[in-house]
């Protein structure tokens, strides 16, 4: 078990955003978390990354308790890395500098160089534009950059928050292929998506989150064929 979230509660003032959430991620899996806008998906990822405080509950990562860390910025060095919602690339910095930010906590210069070369090999467009302001990239390229930047941290568990958001269908397909590739090369993935169809297709396990509560769980296949999921999330 690489990640185990137990009875997690998060409040924003009077709003109870997560109500006793339990999820488990096994090493090597792709686990998808689907749900509509405002269900609490992003809150869950942000709490795991230590950006927001849980009011109660536990988060075990590699058998270590990491809930409400004093130094959330040190989590990436343990291999817990998040690609945030909306990509959040650093505008005004070059593609290359953005990638270096991903390797911020790493000290192995040679390894960083090697991983940079791997990223450029995988995404030639980033190589071509490495000295360009990252803000000038298209949406799809920015998402590739955001994912590559996270890969520069050498993730063991990669948290992906809506990587397909705002992308054209063809690009969405490509992003999901990339996610599958990353998983195949040994990185565990926790994926948050509104695109339920694609997210369930690639998932070993999936959860449905509604207004802060897990209402359904199962394998990707099980949820794809579940009548409730079909009705609410797959449009019929």
């Amino acid at each position, binding site marked *: 078990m690489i990640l185990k979230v137990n009875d997690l509660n998060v409040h924003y003032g009077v709003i109870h955003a997560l109500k006793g959430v339990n999820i488990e991620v096994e090493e090597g899996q792709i686990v998808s978390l689907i749900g509509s806008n405002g269900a609490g998906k992003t809150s869950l990822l942000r709490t795991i990354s230590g*950006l927001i405080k849980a009011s109660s509950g536990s988060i075990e990562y590699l058998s270590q308790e990491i809930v409400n860390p004093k130094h*959330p*910025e040190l989590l990436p060095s343990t291999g817990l890395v998040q690609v945030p919602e909306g990509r959040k690339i*650093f505008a005004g*910095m070059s593609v290359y500098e953005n990638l270096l*930010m991903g390797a*911020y906590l790493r000290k192995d210069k040679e390894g960083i160089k090697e991983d940079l070369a791997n990223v450029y090999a995988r995404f030639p467009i980033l190589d071509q534009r490495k000295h360009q302001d990252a803000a000038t990239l298209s949406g799809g390229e920015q998402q590739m950059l955001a994912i590559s930047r996270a890969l520069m*941290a050498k993730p063991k568990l990669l948290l992906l928050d809506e990587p397909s958001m705002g992308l054209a269908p063809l690009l969405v397909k490509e992003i999901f292929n990339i996610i599958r590739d990353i998983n195949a090369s040994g990185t565990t993935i926790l994926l948050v998506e509104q695109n339920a169809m694609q997210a369930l297709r690639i998932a070993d396990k999936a959860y449905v989150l509604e207004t802060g509560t897990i209402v359904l769980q199962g394998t990707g296949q099980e949820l794809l064929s579940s009548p409730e999921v079909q009705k609410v999330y797959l449009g019929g």
Partner: protein
Amino acid sequence: MLEFLNQIINGLSLGSIYALVALGYTMVYGIIRLINFAHGEIYMFGAFAGMLAITVLRLPFFLALIFAMVVSALLGVVIERVAYKPLRKSTKTAALITAIGISFLLQNVTAMVMGNNTSAFPQVFDQKVYDLGGIRINSLQILIFGVTIVLMFLLQFIVLKTKLGRAMRAVAVDKDASVLMGVNVDNTITITFAIGSALAAAAGVLIGLYHIRVVFWMGTAPGLKAFVAAVFGGIGSIPGAMIGGFAIGLMEALVAGYGGTMWSPYRDAVVYLLLIIVLLVKPSGLLGKNVKEKV
């Protein structure tokens, strides 16, 4: 024409001072969206620190300059940690009022300790005036301009070429995303204050040397004008602050030189008039980005 070139030289040395102070305003604004109105007092504090380093500690000038930069950086760090950091999540008005309060505090404490009257800044260099076919350059003007250019290069190197600089730029763009990369946001903000304060202190020492005196209220007007320079260049932009500082210095020198008895007494007013015009015509400044304020 000669008169014009002489005024340009005056303007460049004056502008160096404004630019060094403007850099601190713009860096701090860039990273936490705070107009640090106590920044002019850091400049004043730096001038006193440099003066005391020379008179009491008997340090040679350049060591005194570095000493003043270091202690002012520490003061900047203490102010940030004690006064601003607890307000990071409060309204901007609260932080702004606190900055004004800190400004008064520093002035009054300095007046209490050092007295209300001006203190002499030791003349460590023999001032030479070089006459290049009618263009008069004072050796101190060369020193001011030279130190400023060196510090600007150093700053640009840190910001553009080092890991620390990348972290500073990343935090200025997006704090949460920076945390996800592994950046310690609080430390990065503190270092930004330290660097900005050190630059202001250098300006203070240079002006102390140039005007051969220091006094507790000396930071107010240059602080405000440097703020105008930062806004003129586009607040948040480091090259903008440099250009803005030199532009304000040149303008002031030209108004002083050519305004005659009619306008030259109003050279400060001209600077503020410029601020009003910039705010009306191009609110984001020369190099500022036209981004909507994040709330």
